């Protein structure tokens, strides 16, 4: 059930990423797949986070024209770190979640752009504004998504089996 929901979430994120951004202005900078990875990492732990991040990133890479694995590696690291944060700290309030999404987006951008620059394949002149905008957008969508899911009926019950044991 959990695996199916995870796959479904990734599929939905990819669907949104590939369709919504073409119809809704201002959504092109958002990374829905990253939002889903962070959400699953925060709610399921680092292992799920890095696995989901890796798989989702590879799928996203395969659907794009970039180097396969760059996005996968970035999302693997982000999923792991977000999962770690979710297990080490209480990240249930909107503000901490917002900050986690901000940080996740920055880390993802740093790894993604850093790898391309390191390999000499692409250049990213003055990416800070774009990254900041994406981070805010991802954080906003992520926090809203969290709240929406928590408002849904049966969320508390689902959260009981989703939340990993605190270490």
């Amino acid at each position, binding site marked *: 059930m959990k695996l199916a929901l995870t796959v479904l979430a990734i599929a939905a994120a990819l669907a949104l990423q590939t369709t919504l951004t073409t119809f809704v202005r201002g959504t092109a900078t958002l990374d829905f797949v990253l939002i889903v990875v962070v959400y699953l990492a925060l709610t399921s732990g680092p292992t799920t986070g890095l696995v989901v991040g890796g798989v989702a990133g590879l799928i996203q890479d395969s659907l794009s024209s970039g180097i396969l694995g*760059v996005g996968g*590696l970035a999302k*693997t690291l982000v999923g792991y770190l977000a999962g770690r944060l979710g297990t080490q700290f209480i990240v249930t309030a909107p503000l901490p979640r917002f900050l986690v999404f901000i940080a996740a987006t920055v880390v993802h951008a740093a790894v993604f752009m850093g790898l391309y620059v390191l390999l000499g394949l692409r250049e990213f002149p003055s990416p800070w504004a774009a990254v900041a905008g994406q981070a805010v957008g991802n954080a906003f969508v992520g926090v809203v998504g969290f709240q929406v899911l928590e408002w849904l009926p049966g969320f508390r019950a689902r959260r009981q089996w989703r939340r990993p044991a605190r270490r």
Partner: protein
Amino acid sequence: MALADIKQRPGLLLGAAVVLHVVIISAQVSTATGLPVLQVVTFGAFAELQRLVTGGVTGVQDLWTGYVDLRGVKDENTSLRQELQALQIRLQEERALAQRAEDLRQLLELRQRAELDTTAAEIIAASASPEFRTVTIDKGSADGLQTDMAVISPTGVVGRLIMPSRRAAKVQLLIDRNAAAGAIIERSRAQGVVLGFGTGQLRMDYVPGTADVKAGDLVVTSGIDGIYPKGFVIGTVESVDHGTGTYHDVRVRPAVDFSRLEEVLVVLTPPPARDAAEAADRP
């Protein structure tokens, strides 16, 4: 490994995932030289491993060859040193043989050039007294040698035969204090008598003060003494003291190096002057 165990080790899983992604990325990316990153990275890492292994092996090899394997070097060194000494001795023998062959060749040439009846002899002994400059040769009366026969060498006049025995003979060297030979300055034809000093030098007496003599002139035998054939080299004029007397004081450097004489020729044919003197003495 069970899935639950993997979940308990997310760090391990992260490492595996990162490596997997790096491999995937590297397989697609080429370096500035056009080679795939994966290949370059793998080769680089493996090369370092090879360098490490080679360094270790070389170190062990050096340790072995530099220390452990040197146990027999002392004996080998001694053996090689002995072999070297033997070879050095053999080299000296070979060099001596070559020198002797050269001396004999020159002697043969002199024999053919002189057109005299000669016999070769080897010096077997030096003088028994330092006061006398004589040598002993290995030929004697049995070989037809007689007193006052001239002894020569390829470089010049050696001396005269003063005491023949049956199988050996004593030769008075020209540098002996009692030796003398009729001589002539080749360039100016000035005549005189060459006498030994007993020290290795010669002096030429009875050279008229009016004669043209200068350092460097060649002094040869005149043949008038009835012992030495005419025209054989005695030496070169080393210095001339014209003085105020009747005769020049002439110093002559011998042509023969008496210290390294080994073979000589004994002239069997008496010079014409002796024949004439002997004929005059006959009744």
